[in-house]
């Protein structure tokens, strides 16, 4: 009924979900995704944008293979090694920062882990336990852990949510730099359009639940050199696409 497999040859992410329902104990099933299609070329960063509760986390869980109860097919990049940053950091509270990374990436050389901690400004926190960290730091540790496994596909679920503006900007720039340097195929989920434009090579705009992709927009310039006008034009274009989709789904309310 469904198929999640590493691609033979075509090194890209290819998602085609006919439907995904949640079955609660009481009442009728809740449809989270319907007719959702997206493809992402290898080495690119895709940004999935949609309103809260539309099914973004659900989509990531399907791609990560955590939920196999759906209709459709998902083709992962070759080898299919996953790195994921969940919406909450999900670190092991009983292991130190550096041990959290070692446990998730046992094959990573110590030098690489040290370099990664350095790059993310975590070197002085290596021996700390997760409870001693603020949310911003814990997110970075989760990011370091996901990168340490040298993923073929990096999944980020709302990596900047509930951080204050300055911290969010710092972390956004950090993520932008890392995915530019490493050319990892990355799928970022967010409800913030500007964040998506700042991080993605390609934007996937989602409808309200049940989610499907209403528009795919390619961002022309590399992340850090994107001109302000271009960004604003893209934003307007995306808002138009969303408004059109909304009007289409609710005739009588222009």
């Amino acid at each position, binding site marked *: 009924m469904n198929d999640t497999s590493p691609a033979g040859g075509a090194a890209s992410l290819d998602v085609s979900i006919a439907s995904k329902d949640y079955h609660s104990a009481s009442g009728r099933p809740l449809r989270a995704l319907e007719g959702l299609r997206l493809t992402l070329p290898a080495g690119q960063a895709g940004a999935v944008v949609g309103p809260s509760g539309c099914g973004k986390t659900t989509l990531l*869980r399907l791609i*990560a*293979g*955590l939920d196999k109860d759906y209709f459709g097919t998902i083709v992962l990049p070759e080898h299919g090694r*996953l*790195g*994921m940053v*969940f919406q*909450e950091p*999900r670190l*092991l*509270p*009983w*292991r130190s920062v550096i041990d959290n990374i070692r*446990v*998730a*990436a*046992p094959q990573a050389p110590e030098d690489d882990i040290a370099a990664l901690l350095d790059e993310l400004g975590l070197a002085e*926190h290596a021996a*700390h*336990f997760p*409870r*001693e*960290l*603020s949310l*911003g*730091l814990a997110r970075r540790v989760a990011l370091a*852990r996901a990168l340490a*496994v040298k993923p073929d596909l990096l999944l980020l679920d709302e990596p900047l949510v509930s951080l204050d503006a300055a*911290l969010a900007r*710092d972390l956004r720039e950090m993520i932008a730099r890392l995915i530019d340097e490493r050319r990892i195929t990355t799928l970022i989920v967010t409800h913030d359009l500007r964040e998506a434009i700042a991080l993605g090579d390609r934007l996937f705009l989602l409808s309200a639940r049940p989610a499907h992709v209403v528009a795919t927009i390619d961002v022309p310039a590399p992340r850090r050199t994107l001109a302000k006008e271009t960004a604003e034009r893209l934003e307007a274009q995306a808002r138009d696409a969303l408004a059109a989709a909304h009007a289409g789904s609710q005739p009588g309310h222009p």
Partner: protein
Amino acid sequence: MIRFISLAALLLLWQIGAWLSDPRRIPGPMAVFEKIYEEAVSGALFSNLAVTLARVVAAFALAMSFGAAIGYVMGRNKLADRLLDPWLVTLLNLPALVVIVLAYVWAGLTEVAAIGAVALNKLPNAIVVVREGARALDPHLEDMAEVFRFSPAARLKHLILPQLAPYLAAATRSGLSLVWKIVLVVELLGRSNGVGFEINMAFQLFDMKLLLAYALPFVALMLGVETILVQPLERHVSRWRRGVSRRLDRV
């Protein structure tokens, strides 16, 4: 300090009780300590304590390992839980004495029957506690381990055991004190050595000095194991919980 005063008060009360009653009924502390010394010099005290301790360790290890395995499966698998729950309830409500007598009747007055009976008495309690722990395992961390493809060994060591540790510690604490007590009954009923056997002998001879000369060192040994082994172990497994107060809120 307060513990010391409390202990001294207990000794004093004991001494007063000894003065007020027949020394054959309540021997004074000095008489008992002399008897302990006597038994220690002859070596009988240590060999009996060692035999009892070995039985405690064997029965405890058996009950904890089977209890943890069965409790984990019942906590994780609804079908197994439904199937085994009536057995568990039966075992929980079976008096210790019944289990012991049945074990001796069916397996003879043997070491296997003795240790098995003690383990069987502790088993349901270990199962119940570990099942509770297995039900409380964090599914979010499990998803994380799934995505990062933790090996089964890494899962056990870094994910499951740390979450079960408080439950295992609780089962150890309640389990040890239970096992200590039941081992004495088992020895009294069907063994020819150990602290329980000696206490039975003392009872037959109405030798209160001998009885206390075994009971007291035994209690001291129990307390020693508790403070030297169990408590430091508990502190060790929960060390990551400390430090919450020195949360670093700068980035």
